[in-house]
């Protein structure tokens, strides 16, 4: 009994982290469908800059992971390549790649989460669907404006943990610290330029830019969203592998 009394505060804190994360997820649910153009600026340690451009579409699947379709636009040698992802709350994601030069739809394995996305400081894991069930949560601290939550991956990941600063007003992360397997602070993502989108009388905030800095290599990547729309009623066939080689 004494042991249980001693553990109660810890259990309470653990649940608080999960509760906050659940509230954040619920607040960000209900977007129905989303589309945007994403510009990615890659900056190496010497300050050289390269730009990438892609079009992103997402379809919300109630009570399960979302479906997303990314079409690469720049650089031109990969223009027209598409990546379709069906994410799930618990199971491994399904992923397909459409290669325009071969007119071929290829199933790919989703175990490449730790790989860099198009040579950027973002990994596939960072940009993939952030389902609540894929992490365990721990409440760290709070002030008037923010909560700080630590989360650890349940499945295979490139990180040992992530520490997120979540705005109480925006109900979304404004800063995420990524720790590598040696528990070193490896990367920091800072989100800015938030904009409110109204979908069915619900206000959903989305970041206009995410600036990811690799603190070990000094390389940086900045994602900037434009032409973003929420509440888009996509044709669900757009997110089927059968339609991948048809749209452009």
């Amino acid at each position, binding site marked *: 009994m004494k042991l249980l009394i001693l553990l109660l505060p810890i259990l309470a804190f653990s649940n608080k982290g999960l509760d906050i994360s659940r509230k954040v997820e619920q607040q960000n649910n209900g977007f129905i469908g989303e589309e945007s153009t994403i510009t990615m600026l890659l900056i190496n340690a010497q300050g050289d800059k390269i730009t990438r451009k892609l079009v992103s579409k997402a379809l919300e699947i109630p009570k399960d992971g979302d479906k997303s379709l990314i079409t690469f636009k720049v650089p031109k040698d990969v223009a027209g390549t598409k990546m379709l992802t069906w994410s799930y709350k618990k199971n491994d994601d399904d992923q397909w790649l459409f290669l325009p030069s071969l007119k071929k739809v290829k199933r790919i394995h989703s175990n490449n989460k730790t790989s860099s996305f198009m040579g950027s400081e973002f990994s596939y894991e960072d940009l993939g669907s952030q389902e609540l069930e894929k992490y365990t949560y721990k409440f760290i601290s709070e002030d008037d404006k923010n909560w700080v939550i630590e989360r650890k991956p349940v499945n295979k990941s490139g990180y040992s943990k992530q520490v997120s600063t979540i705005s109480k007003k925006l109900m979304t992360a404004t800063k995420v610290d990524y720790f590598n397997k040696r528990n070193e602070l490896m990367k920091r993502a800072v989100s800015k330029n938030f904009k409110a989108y109204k979908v069915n009388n619900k206000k959903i905030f989305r970041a206009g830019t995410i600036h990811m800095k690799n603190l070990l290599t000094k390389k940086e990547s900045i994602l900037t969203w434009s032409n973003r729309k929420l509440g888009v009623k996509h044709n669900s066939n757009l997110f089927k*592998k059968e339609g991948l080689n048809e749209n452009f």
Partner: protein
Amino acid sequence: MRIFSLVFFLSLNILPFSQFDVETTLSQRAYQEDQNPITNTYNTSLGLKLSGKAKSEEDNYRVKVVIDSLYDFMDEDRFYVYPEEAWIGYDDGSHILKVGFQHFNWSSTEAFRPSDVVNSRNLDTQIKNASKIGEPMISYKKIIGQASLTTFVSPFFMKPLYPGLKSSYATPSLPVDSYLIFQGDSRTDKDPSSFQGGVIFNFSISKSDIALHYINHIDRDSFIPLIDPVKRIITPIYYRKQQVGLTSQNVIGGMILKTEFVSRFFTQDVINFSQNNLKNYHVGTIGIEKNFPIGDGELIFLTEYIKAFSQNSFQANSEVFDNDLLVGFRHSFNNVNGSELNLSLISDMKEYNQFIFNFSYSQRLKNNWKVEFGVNYVDSEVTPTYTGAEILDSADFAYLNIKKFL
């Protein structure tokens, strides 16, 4: 054809969302010296690929044109211009109708693709999976839940593009001249009007993508050679073939299992014409792909095996790839330059000593520039059918391509 071109031109200009791209490739090939005074040891060519696409505001009406061309400064026969795609289409998300030059690919495997027989190919490009030439077709696809049914008909036969006499990459030992089509009753002619068509049913079950197909066509991947000993030329006689098959891609544990199995059937007329050298037969391929994360990138290991099953051993041996094993690695560095390294080895598991080795490396130099270089090396004993790797035994070459995208 003029009306068709005019409709394309007008569509590309009228439809509001249009995009035009240009890809130029300066290519240098250096062949192993083959002691043949006719063939070139070096090729320097300029390739130009033009593409344009447009769609209506509602995204229903679409038009796409991709024209591929190449001019070789050292071989005047090595000049071609053909459409990879040139079609007008309607797509409401569930029904997709296209009319014009199209090409299809529903294969699951990477190297050995017995299912991938639709469309003529440009045999000047590479021995396995040479580039496809668009063919005039009407196609219709219906998306039904997690499945789709595609049908296509093609009213014309289009011959493959063979390398010319000066090319060290020449496929047969003698130059190929024109073509003939077996029309039945021992009759052959050059009339290209010939009905071809097929049906493909794609569906997914759990972590498996499966496609079933039926094709009735004039096969371009094999022919009966008519040899003129005086002029020393080969005229290929193409014939009708039916094919039913199954392809699948399955996620199993940490890897992807890929399979293709096809059965090919001939009419009695074709069997008689071939003097019983052709019999109905089957071809199967099985492959495994497994990726390993390495730093920011990934290493992909690939192995595939192909086997022909025929009562006629001559016919099985006539397949370019039979009883062959491929082992390959691809390292995608996932860096800003998109660097990629490929290594593959195809080895004949029969009694003949044959192997094909490929190495290639590519990376972007800047956003719109890309460099590729590599080596193709073939070592082969001569087989009785002369259809395997020995075709390219003297065509080892190194290449350097510099591409500019506009």
